[in-house]
């Protein structure tokens, strides 16, 4: 086995995380003495790294807590309720420009632009990006029996809720939704005819379009409500109610 082959063998195992400590030390030494300046070995390292990273995609994706991205940002002391970066570049090649669209029953071009901040009794699910939001909402709207109710008082391009009575899934969506007052976030509630309101996800709209999946059937309560809250984990709505939507069965 020549030097290239020995390094290649070590690189293959290293990319997969399979080297024992002695072999790891051997690779480090061989890399310094040979690999770093060897085009063939550098190529092998890059290619094996790529292959190993992509093996993860043989697995089915798993559900992720809806507030996890914001938890990461909180760990570094970043505020999570700001909807824009201080500076934005023009999208690069391959990037997609999201523009507001008119909502319609046959909607096929929508995108998620939302930050889920917390989930309460209703839970909530962070859709996996713009295209996921498009796909999921368009598919939901296309199903027979889907109803769309508008939150009153949110303006012509305000929030709506799509639901199907009897199904534990609904979507709150809207275009160019106004930002919540400073220091607050939107908070969803299911308001039953009797009993206490059930807390749902809290969110801050981003640019353009917003989609929040709510794993609940709003027709069971009959009404959805929105409040502005300073604490996204609040257990009871803080008056006044900003808006309501009638969601009859």
């Amino acid at each position, binding site marked *: 086995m020549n030097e290239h082959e020995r390094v290649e*063998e070590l690189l*293959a*195992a290293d*990319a*997969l*995380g*399979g*080297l*024992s400590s002695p072999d790891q030390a051997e690779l480090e030494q061989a890399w310094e003495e040979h690999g770093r300046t060897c085009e063939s070995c550098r*190529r092998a390292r*890059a*290619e*094996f*790294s*790529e*292959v*190993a*990273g*992509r*093996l*993860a*995609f*043989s*697995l*089915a*994706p*798993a*559900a*992720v*807590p809806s507030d*996890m*991205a*914001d*938890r*990461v*940002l909180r*760990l*570094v002391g*970043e505020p*999570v309720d700001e*909807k*824009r*970066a*201080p500076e*934005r*570049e023009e999208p*690069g*090649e*391959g*990037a997609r420009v999201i523009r507001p669209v008119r909502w319609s029953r046959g909607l096929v071009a929508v995108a998620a*632009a939302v*930050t889920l901040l917390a989930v309460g009794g209703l839970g909530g699910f*962070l*859709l*996996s*990006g713009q*295209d*996921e939001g498009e*796909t999921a909402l368009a598919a939901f709207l296309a199903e027979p029996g889907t109803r769309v109710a508008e939150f009153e008082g949110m303006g012509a391009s305000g929030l709506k809720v799509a639901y199907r009575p009897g199904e534990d899934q609904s979507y709150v969506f809207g275009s160019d939704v106004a930002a919540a007052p400073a220091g607050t976030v939107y908070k969803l509630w299911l308001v039953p005819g009797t009993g206490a309101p059930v807390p749902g996800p809290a969110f801050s709209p*981003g640019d353009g379009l917003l989609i929040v999946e709510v794993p609940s059937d709003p027709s069971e309560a009959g009404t959805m409500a929105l409040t502005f809250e300073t604490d996204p984990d609040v257990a009871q709505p803080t008056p006044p109610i900003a808006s309501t939507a009638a969601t009859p069965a």
Partner: protein
Amino acid sequence: VRPVEMTDARDRDLLRRIALGDRESFRRLFARYAPTAMALARRVVRQAHLAEETVQEAFLAVWKKPGGYDPELGSVRAWLMSTVHHRAVDAVRREQAQRRRSDEAMLDAATVEYDHAEAVVEEIGLPEEREAVRQAMGSLPAEQRRVIELMYFEGLSQSRIAERLELPLGTVKSRTLLAMRRLRGELGWIRE
């Protein structure tokens, strides 16, 4: 342009924006890849809380140091998953001495099925990627695939695999190299 190539371009664009402090771009990258990262972490560490910690740490590192990505070494998604994988393997090796693996506590590798993803809507381009990787894995001879699975998805070193399979260490090493060469050919990634 294939969807997965468009995904590459968008990912690099997101990383550039993250480097400028764009939180929304971070959230988009997270939303796109956290479900796969979580699946990988769970598969390796087999404990829900440890998997969550692993994914959280990996994405924290991305936010703090997006410049850690080197385009010379491949795609953003492969780099992200390698980041998660390294941390998961480190975690599982740290834990190995102290814990017993519990089938009740976490998914067992043998029961992981590919159709458990109803709750996760796929990003454009990723279904194609998943199919390509599964086909590449399926193209391996069974004995090579077993070595790769034990190493990558269970976090075992070549020495431990040799013990587990009662094979000479040299055989495990050669199977690893042959498998990786074949996967490289099947997945068709060539560094420019």
